[in-house]
């Protein structure tokens, strides 16, 4: 496998760019593995990579029903941040951001992380108080956060609506400098290449249809390419966790919902930070090609259909126009939607399932992209050691029964409102 470097680039260019090797092998399934990971997205591939790298477990297969990077890894708004407030979430997401910061070097693959900062806008003094509290909690956990005044926000993002006509006047913002965006496909490709280099089999076009059982224990998976045995099976199929768990007879605290996202035609640089609106659920950044990438709320009803509905499109565009009026002159050129595992408290699940041999990494709601590295890192630990790492110790299934929900937004068991 070619090590990517400026030197390799020049050398291959002089040779007419022939001789680049594949980034990873298109492996055929073997009869059995130590660990089978279901789901070849960012989380599943990161899990396989850290299993091999951190725990020396290399008899690993990643099964993907479609192609690598073709699921939710390629259906998000690429925002990376760690501005969480609740114990259990805070340090986990900070770990994830730190893994992002070293990822390009670690994987020898440019994930194009751009730490351009994120403005969480506040539109009332009460929101500023809440932002100050959140920022203080972040700083106490060693995470960078800064409270900005209206004028400081204006200097960072002058295209926001600072006029007297603004429907939701900007009072200030909570700023995280280390937040930003990354290249969404690159994390899948980089982890796939890194895992493959450690001997992990990445098997595409292989859909899991059921589990192989022995004395009440899961000992493998039935797939469209035959049965594959495994000592441990890990699910990393957020969006479809409920569907696969049902094959194992599990009911989960998860509903599946739709989230849409949009990209406009490219324009010259107008916004060099990530902005989230404080008066409605809306977030926007400008990608490297110049397109404005935007997202907002869930469609609001349970759905497995990977396509969005019109009312939410209207709402998103209204939000966009309220915060950056000139966006109304741009055309939306791409629009996509992904299916989300929405948990009953808005926080994820990384734990052993009640069934021996089956482990679950899911419930990512719509925060899965930024969490991919830490999710894989913690899931690999859970699979290898048979117990959670301190960082994912609270992401259990039984927290709902015990009354230890991690409800960042305080919405209760109404997953479409998280």
């Amino acid at each position: 496998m070619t090590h990517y470097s400026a030197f390799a680039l020049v050398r291959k260019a002089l040779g007419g760019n022939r001789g680049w090797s594949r980034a990873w092998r298109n492996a055929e399934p073997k009869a059995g593995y130590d660990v089978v990971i279901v789901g070849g997205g960012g989380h599943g591939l990161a899990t396989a990579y850290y299993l091999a790298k951190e725990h020396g477990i290399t008899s690993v297969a990643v099964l993907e029903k479609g192609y690598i990077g073709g699921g939710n890894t390629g259906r998000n708004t690429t925002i990376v941040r760690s501005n969480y407030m609740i114990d259990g979430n805070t340090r986990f997401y900070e770990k994830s951001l730190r893994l992002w910061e070293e990822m390009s070097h670690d994987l020898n693959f440019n994930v194009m992380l751009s730490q351009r900062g994120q403005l969480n806008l506040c539109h009332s003094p009460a929101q500023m108080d809440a932002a100050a509290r959140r920022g203080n909690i972040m700083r106490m956990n060693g995470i960078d956060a800064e409270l900005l005044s209206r004028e400081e926000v204006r200097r960072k993002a002058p295209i926001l609506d600072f006029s007297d006509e603004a429907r939701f006047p900007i009072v200030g913002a909570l700023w995280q400098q280390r937040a930003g965006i990354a290249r969404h496909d690159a994390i899948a490709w980089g982890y796939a290449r890194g895992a493959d280099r450690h001997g992990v089999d990445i098997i595409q076009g292989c859909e899991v249809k059921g589990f192989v059982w022995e004395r009440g224990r899961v000992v493998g998976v039935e797939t469209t390419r035959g049965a594959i045995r495994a000592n441990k099976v890990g699910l990393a199929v957020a969006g479809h966790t409920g569907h696969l768990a049902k094959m194992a007879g599990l009911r989960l605290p998860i509903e599946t919902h739709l989230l849409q996202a949009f990209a406009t035609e490219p324009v010259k640089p107008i916004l060099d930070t990530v902005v989230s609106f404080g008066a409605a659920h809306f977030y926007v950044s400008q990608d490297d090609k110049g397109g404005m990438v935007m997202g907002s709320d869930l469609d609001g009803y349970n759905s497995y259909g990977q396509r969005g509905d019109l009312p939410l499109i209207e709402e998103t565009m209204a939000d966009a126009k309220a915060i950056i009026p000139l966006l109304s002159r741009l055309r939306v050129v791409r629009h996509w939607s992904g299916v989300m595992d929405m948990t009953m408290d808005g926080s994820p699940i990384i734990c052993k399932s009640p069934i021996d041999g089956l482990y679950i990494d899911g419930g990512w709601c719509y925060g899965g992209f930024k969490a991919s590295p830490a999710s894989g890192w913690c899931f690999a630990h859970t699979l290898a050691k048979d117990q959670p790492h301190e960082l994912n110790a609270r992401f259990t299934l039984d927290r709902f029964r015990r009354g230890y929900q991690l409800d960042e937004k305080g919405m209760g068991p109404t997953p479409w409102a998280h």
Partner: protein
Amino acid sequence: MLRITCPFCGERDQVEFAYGGDAASVFPDLADADLDRWTDAVFMRDNPRGDHREFWQHQHGCRQWLYVVRDTVTHEIKSTLPAREPRRAAATHEGRKG
């Protein structure tokens, strides 16, 4: 855009309605103190890929709560009933397993 046929007002756009969530979970009797049964009813979901029983409220219409069966893949609405008695409505469809 979903079009929901309200039994009281007729066929209307989805934007007139508010979603009320999964209608398959039925809460235990209030005197029941069993933690597992409450956990099951409050937090656990069948989350089907296919027919889903759910509540909608005709918020910008007659304000009645409705009991809707909708396919979660095609979004096709199979039936709409008043939700006054969800247990009775549930009994007209295939009962939930377990």
